[in-house]
Every structure is written in structure tokens, then in C-alpha cells.
């Protein structure tokens, strides 16, 4: 039973759907931030985790990294490298969000560009949803990494 479930989970068609979905999410997240780096810098600053000098370089580079990783995932090139970056970004974001939830400090996600004015309760609710979404995306990234790893190994065996 388990190998069969495994086979189903790592089915090439599922893997392709997952990596394209993940890629599209990252492209959608990247574009508004590329269009407005000061807004993203403000969003990162609100997390109160990044030291001042690192703030602007991070706000400038991170959206482009998201875009290139998203494109690579969608197009199916350099899948492992892109999925590794995506997983790292998701982990870092989840970590930052968890810290601010734990210290009861409301922040706007900043995930898909600017946010409207919200009350504190709404912000906390949004943060929990973001964390859940983050975990879901992390699962997708894990699937892509695992599948591409198996593929690489089987290719290695054939050679």
C-alpha cells in the first residue's frame, strides 16, 4: 500500500501541476513587490526582525528572486535549485510570522503587495491564515524537491 501511495504522490503529472502552481504563486507574489520596493521595505521593517542596513537590499532583491524561482518552476528549468530557494524563503517567512505572532505583534503579511488598513484582530487572523498558507506552500515545495531528487537519482542510475 505504501509504495503505491508514494508512487501516486510523486506521479510526474502531479509533480508538474504542483511546480507550475507553486511557480505561479511566486510570480504573482513577486510582481507587486517589484513594482514598489519602498512599500516592501516598509512591510519588512514592520516585522522588526531585519537590521536596518539589510532592509533595503532585501526589499530590492527578494522580489526578483521570487520571480526567477517562480519562472524556473513554471518553465521546468533548474527545478531543484528554484524549489530549494522557494522552500528557504517560505521557511524564513514562516519563521518571521511565527515570531511576531508569538510576541503578539501585528504585522501585515506583505506577501502580495500593500494591504488595506485593518484592525488588530483582523491582522492576527490574517497572520494565522498566512502561516497556514505558508505551510501548504512548503508542502508543495517539499513535493517538488522530493520528486526532482528521485528523478535525478534514477537518471544517475541509468547513466
Amino acid at each position: 500500500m505504501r509504495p503505491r501511495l508514494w508512487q501516486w504522490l510523486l506521479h510526474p503529472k502531479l509533480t508538474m501541476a504542483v511546480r507550475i502552481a507553486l511557480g505561479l504563486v511566486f510570480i504573482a507574489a513577486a510582481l507587486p513587490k517589484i513594482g514598489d520596493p519602498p512599500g516592501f521595505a516598509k512591510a519588512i521593517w514592520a516585522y522588526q526582525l531585519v537590521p536596518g542596513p539589510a532592509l533595503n537590499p532585501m526589499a530590492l532583491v527578494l522580489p526578483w528572486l521570487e520571480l526567477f524561482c517562480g519562472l524556473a518552476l513554471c518553465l521546468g528549468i533548474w527545478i531543484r535549485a528554484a524549489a530549494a530557494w522557494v522552500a528557504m524563503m517560505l521557511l524564513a517567512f514562516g519563521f518571521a510570522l511565527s515570531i511576531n505572532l508569538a510576541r503578539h505583534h501585528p504585522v501585515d503579511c506583505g506577501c502580495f503587495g500593500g494591504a488595506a488598513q485593518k484592525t488588530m484582530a483582523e491582522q492576527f487572523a490574517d497572520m494565522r491564515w498566512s502561516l497556514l498558507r505558508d505551510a501548504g506552500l512548503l508542502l508543495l515545495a517539499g513535493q517538488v524537491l522530493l520528486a526532482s531528487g528521485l528523478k535525478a537519482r534514477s537518471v544517475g542510475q541509468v547513466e
Partner: protein
Amino acid sequence: MPLPSSTPLRALALAGMAVTAALIANTFASPARRLAWVGSSVPPSIAAPGVEKIPPPVTGSGQPIVPEPKDGHPIHPGHLPPSRMTASPAPAAAPAPETPPSSPIRDISAEEAWRAFQSGTPFLDARRSSEFAEGHIASAWSTPVWESDLDDRLLSFKAARRPGSEDPIVIYCSGGDCRDSHLLAEKLLGEGYFHLLIFHDGYPAWVAQGRPVEKGRP
């Protein structure tokens, strides 16, 4: 050029592409969408957003009220150094204290902001320039604290108004847990301005009270 073959190399190549693209894009971005790579306009000392200090209550004359004393000690408004906090108990019933021990950065109410507006005090809008264009307090200056041309805008404000270090300047953003006006106030404090009034409720409160507003670019 051979393409990198191993995963770590490819990951590095992705990062390099991102840095290159960011460099190019930032070079050609408009000032409102540009960021300085080094030297942020954001002051290093930052009060956590969301953790609000209670603004001191103010009277019509713009001086802080000393609330009713508890346990024989008057409660001074916020922002006071500890030495002032333990100062001799000023009589709460004293008519209009001569020198209010107010700090250089002080929160003000909508009423006080309106009086400042009527007396011609300059208003600085710390929000993004796009928000300023959508609507701002009449005759306010656009000084978006997150945008790369903040220093130029502040310079043109100073050149036009020549504010002295003790002249009042009202700073506002969008109210609520907006910290932009505080960031701008800290920056101006560092530049030697000591009478900074933060209109805490900001633009939404101004609009709600039907005060004069303007639209369009500065």
C-alpha cells in the same frame, strides 16, 4: 559560457540573476519607486509599531494637562526623562504652568491640529506619494518617509518655509498604527527640530471632520 550543472551552483546563479535584475530595475525606477541600496532613510531607533504610547491629553492652549494626582504624585504626560518623572510634585491646580516639560516630539489631537492649521503651521505628509496624490491636508508638504527622494523634498520644504528649530511642525500619516509620522519626526529631531507635533489620528480623521483637503501631486 557553460551553464552551471550542480544544484548549489544553479541556486547561486538564480540569486545572482536576482541581484542583477534588482540593480538594473532600481537604476531606472522613478524616485517614488526607488530605494537606496545603502543608508536607509529609516532612523535606527524604532519603536515597535502597534505598541502605542498613550498620547498625553492636551488643553486648548496646546499645553499638556497634568492629570489629577494619584497617591500625592502628579502623573506627567509621556516622553519624559526619568529625572522629570520624579520631580517635585507640581501643584495640579496651578493655573497654566509656565514652562510645560513637553518633549520635542508630541502627539496632538485633531482639534489641536486644526488650530495649528488655522495659525499657518506647516504640515508634513509622511505617507507614500501615491497616497498624497489621492488626497492630503490642504497645503501640506509631501515628505514620504519611505521614498528615496525624501531628503530632496525635505530640503525644498526647508528652503521654502525656513522653519527655525523651535518652530512647530505638524507631521501626519494615515492614523491607526501608522508609524511613518513617528519615523519622520525622529529623522527631523536628528536634524535639529525640537517642536514636532504628530497628528496621531492623521488624514482619515481630518477627512472625517470635513477639514480642507487637496488632491494632486505636490
